[in-house]
């Protein structure tokens, strides 16, 4: 991921947009709210997260929620 061409600008998300995308991803993939996912994740309630595509989609987005 070295270069961004001058003619190709990558826009930045606001914190509000990031949290909205996180929450939407959780609802679409796991049918719960972002807050509920964070509570369950922090409590270790996902037994096999690596084997669940929905959980892994959301886990990759965790920086948007923190």
């Amino acid at each position, binding site marked *: 991921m070295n270069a961004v061409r001058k003619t190709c600008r990558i826009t930045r998300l606001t914190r509000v947009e990031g949290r909205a995308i996180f929450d939407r991803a959780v609802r679409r993939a796991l049918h719960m709210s972002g807050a509920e996912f964070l509570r369950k994740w922090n409590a270790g309630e996902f037994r096999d997260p690596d084997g669940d595509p929905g959980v892994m989609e959301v886990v990759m987005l965790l920086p*948007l929620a923190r």
Partner: protein
Amino acid sequence: MTNAVLRVSSYAPGGPHVLLFNNNLPVRLHGPGIWFALTLRFRVTECIERGRGRWRVETTGYRYSVQDAPDHEVLRYDWHPESQEGGRLVSFPHLHVHAGRSVGRWLHKVHLPTGQVEVESVLALLLRDLGVRARRRDWKRILQQAGARFED
């Protein structure tokens, strides 16, 4: 392949930050019925090497998902060493293959890119994930000493 755009959560020094493709929604690629989703994690660090610019972007995780319908995954390349909370996730790069509609149609003839894979890692896969029984109780220690990439 697509006109979908990339966005980032931040360019600030530090991280982890997230690079999103199509606002995290799967994108139908031009051509056959294949959808693609991509998420990258990265860090921004100050570069100490001369002549390379002040800032360096370092990839610290990825998820590349190939789907044969929206949210119907066939393949997923994963690397998420920073998401290791509680040791619940493996930290080495790996590939997931799911029983999507397309598996029988094209999976047998495509060439899935991987890094070099040591035989010790494949033996660990057989023993840990596929339930093959080892003849020795200390197989984990032996394979780890030999350089196999796996975690309990």
